[in-house]
């Protein structure tokens, strides 16, 4: 078989994965069928591992396929499947095209300290720090996702809008404009930084990023040391022209010793294509010797010893990593544990287990049987003043409301932010104990312990309510999406985020289950309400409420005043988003630590209107 064709196969696969994964992060108009998302992201290593520890089953076996592939052919994942790897190849290609001088790579020594440290670091953070932060910041799929979602999608939407305007000038309404929801500066900063790092590495050093920084590359590199098929140089054929060395993005071909460091080989097969003598080949176990082309003489003892040492080392390292990964489902995000004792009274079992148990049993009914947990905060009704629930350990996390505790606003309108449109600025700040995690994520612990912050749900979310967090989940949950009710609110009948999540952080919800999934509960600060404070009609909160957990009841002079029924609230945030007063809103949603089941809104028969044919 002419192995030069292997490169073409790699290119086809790479283009498929790059374009499809790239597009799902850009797509804002649901052009890509939601049912295909999990297929497209199936093979992505880190999401698949996490999903495996969440849901088990075939749907999460992608990483096992990758491990098998790697144990057969080495790190072909890095060149054909990993979107961040393919992005680097594109950068190299651009460099090749823009430079007059021919691009030549050289052999380089492995950066063992860096690569093994950066593999160990996220695992240490996971086990010792009980946090996914290290994995989130270094997982190549999630880095790629954040680059395309946070930076790429706004560019894509802008292009769409320019085209739409052009068409409209010609009275053609075939493309529709979309407003870009602007995130906070820091949520652009981290992806920009990673993009710069990756571009710099690939522009200057080929695939050095994958061999010095990327923990997935390093992990698969351990396995590829013992893979069945490996790239070898055949001494008897090699003329030492070094074309393979110049073509090797991973800098892993050592011409001096006629050796290929297969732990660093990213399986691009460029070397196979450029060799005029077929002297570098992917060979099976029978053909390992560098000296003989076809089933040659046995290896010398020195090289055999080298092999077995490498193999032993690899096996030990892999075992350690495997153990560490197994810790994900049980260890991560235990920082919410201290509060769980108080709120999860429904079942006495260990909360982590109850999460997964529920998922395995009836995947579409999160939180069944745990409703009792809300008892402490249900029916709070209207609350006067702040601080009735202050003083808890998690208060600091609430910090989304500017000016909290600022009581000197009265009369001083000049110092107010511009967006205050009500005549009398509101004074009482909402008190939020927990952030709101997306529907299907079961609760904060489940979500933060499984989300790698790839931002696929943020890209897919049709309303833009999902936004990258900064400190909402604590600093180590940075960039994990939260429901930002200042940006928008959750569409009652939409379950898109739950269908696209590759890690199982957001588990699949049916539309019916979503309608009773309670992410948080509504709270009303009547003193802030424009109807109460200024005696003018409003009703914006109730208007937006899908279940009428906020209803308007008769007040005075024909006015209506909001009244809340937290038991039927789903926590979608529509009321909070719609409330017109500033700086503090009159109605808001406080997140649940563990999602609850909302009661269904009561159905009452209508009284028939009896009247003459034309009442005028």
């Amino acid at each position, binding site marked *: 078989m002419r192995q030069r064709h292997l490169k073409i196969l790699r290119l086809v696969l790479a283009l498929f994965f790059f374009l499809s994964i790239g597009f799902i992060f850009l797509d804002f108009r649901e052009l890509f069928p939601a049912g295909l998302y999990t297929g497209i992201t199936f093979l992505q290593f880190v999401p698949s591992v996490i999903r495996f520890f969440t849901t088990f089953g075939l749907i999460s076996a992608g990483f096992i396929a990758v491990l098998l592939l790697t144990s057969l052919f080495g790190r072909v994942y890095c060149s054909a499947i990993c979107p961040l790897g393919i992005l680097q190849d594109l950068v190299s290609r651009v460099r090749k095209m823009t430079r007059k001088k021919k691009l030549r790579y050289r052999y380089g020594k492995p950066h063992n300290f860096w690569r093994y440290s950066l593999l160990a670091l996220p695992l240490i953070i996971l086990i010792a720090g009980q946090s996914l932060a290290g994995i989130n910041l270094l997982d190549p799929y999630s880095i790629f996702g954040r680059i395309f979602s946070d930076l790429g999608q706004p560019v894509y939407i802008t292009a769409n809008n320019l085209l739409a305007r052009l068409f409209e000038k010609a009275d053609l*309404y075939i493309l529709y404009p*979309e407003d870009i929801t602007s995130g906070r500066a820091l949520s652009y900063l981290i992806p920009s930084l990673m993009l710069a790092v990756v571009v710099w590495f690939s522009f200057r050093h080929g695939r050095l990023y994958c061999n010095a920084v990327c923990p997935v590359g390093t992990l698969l590199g351990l396995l590829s040391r013992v893979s069945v098929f490996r790239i070898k140089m055949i001494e008897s054929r090699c003329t030492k022209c070094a074309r393979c060395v110049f073509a090797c993005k991973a800098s892993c071909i050592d011409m001096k010793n006629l050796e290929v460091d297969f732990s660093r080989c990213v399986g691009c097969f460029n070397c196979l294509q450029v060799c005029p003598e077929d002297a570098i080949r992917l060979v099976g176990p029978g053909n390992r010797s560098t000296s003989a082309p076809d089933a040659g003489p046995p290896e010398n003892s020195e090289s055999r010893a080298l092999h077995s040492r490498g193999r032993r080392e690899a096996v030990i390292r892999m075992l350690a990593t495997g153990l560490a990964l197994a810790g994900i489902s049980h260890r991560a995000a235990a920082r919410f544990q201290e509060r769980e004792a108080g709120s999860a009274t429904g079942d006495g079992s260990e909360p982590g287990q109850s999460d997964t148990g529920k998922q395995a049993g009836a995947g579409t009914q999160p939180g069944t049987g745990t409703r009792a947990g809300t008892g402490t905060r249900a029916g709070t009704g209207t609350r006067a003043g702040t601080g009735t629930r202050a003083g808890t350990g998690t208060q600091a996390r609430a910090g989304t409301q500017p000016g909290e505790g600022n009581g000197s606003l009265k009369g001083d309108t000049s110092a107010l932010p511009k967006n205050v449109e009500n005549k009398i600025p509101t004074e009482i700040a909402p008190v939020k104990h927990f952030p709101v995690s997306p529907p299907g994520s079961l609760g904060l612990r489940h979500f933060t312990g499984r989300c790698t912050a790839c931002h696929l749900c943020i890209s897919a979310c049709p309303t833009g309510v999902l936004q990258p967090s900064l400190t909402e989940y604590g600093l180590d949950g940075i960039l994990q999406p939260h429901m930002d009710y200042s940006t928008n609110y959750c569409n009652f009948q939409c379950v898109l985020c739950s269908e696209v999540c590759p890690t199982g952080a957001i588990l699949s919800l049916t539309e019916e289950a979503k309608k009773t999934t309670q992410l948080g509960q509504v709270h009303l600060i009547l003193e802030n309400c424009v109807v109460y404070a200024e005696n003018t009609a*409003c009703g*914006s909160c109730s*208007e937006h*409420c*899908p279940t009428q957990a906020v209803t308007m009841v008769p007040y005075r002079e024909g006015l209506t005043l909001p009244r809340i029924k937290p038991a039927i609230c789903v926590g979608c945030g529509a009321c909070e988003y719609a409330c017109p*007063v500033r700086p503090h809103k009159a109605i808001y949603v406080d997140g649940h630590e563990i999602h609850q089941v909302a009661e269904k809104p009561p159905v009452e028969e209508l009284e028939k209107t009896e009247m003459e*044919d034309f*009442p005028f």
Partner: protein
Amino acid sequence: MKRREFVRKGIGAGIAAGSAMSMSSFNPLWGKTNTLQNYDLVAVKGGEPGVMFDRAIQSLGGMEKYVKKGQKVVIKPNMGWDAVPERAANTNPQLIARIVEQCLAAGAKDVYVFDHTINEWTRCYQNSGIEKATKDAGGTIVAGNSQARYHEIDIPGGRVLKKALVHELVLESDVFINVPVLKHHGGAGLCVSMKNLMGAVWDRRFWHANDLQQCIADFTTAVKPDLNVVDGYRVLMKNGPRGVSVADVETRKFQILSADMVAADAAATKFLAKDPEQIGHIRIAAEMHLGTIDLSKLNIDRIQL
């Protein structure tokens, strides 16, 4: 284009036939009407949405009275909610389809349909059934979700509302047809013609923060539709303007047409056995002489099908 032509011709023929019938004194059902009379308001009961509209617009002198050849028409239904037609949170799609067809039959160059929705717009357009109905009828669906398409206008007659960002289609089109669905509204009392115009505006938060009822009335001093068609086929009787389920809906099968928003809204209010004076923005608009709230002063055609 062939299909659209077919529709135009078909409707033209239908109108001709209908007119002929209405002239005939032998037909007891149609006998009473006289198309030459200038009605201020037409109320029609007891038919399907399209049929009622055909009958009512004919009574007002036909669509040709409002739409001239080659004109651009914009239709503003209420499709602000991600809800199916049976929930009656949005205007009836059959009614919109018929209005689009009538406009095209009268010679309109383009008929645009849009709303600044409250729920996510693609779902509203789709699940309301209006997107499909409009396209099938030959109209053009336009998105209302981008601030760039809204332009500031002055409202000199407004008491509180002095400025608003209004969709460019409303500002540019030759004919503006307002097609609200009548429903209960928790904040504004009722949602009819005047309230429906909020969907042509971008910056609605100001209205809610600064006396909603007054702002609704203020806006009508600056933007006046050429025709208002109030959809009373299915009526959301409570939990409005969104509604929770079909249990909130009563099928009433009526329709009101008028160029006078105050009159149309007052008539619609009476259909719900309520007093128009009790609905804040209707009362305020009447006080500001923006229309007639006293229906006894109007020339009304009452049609029972």
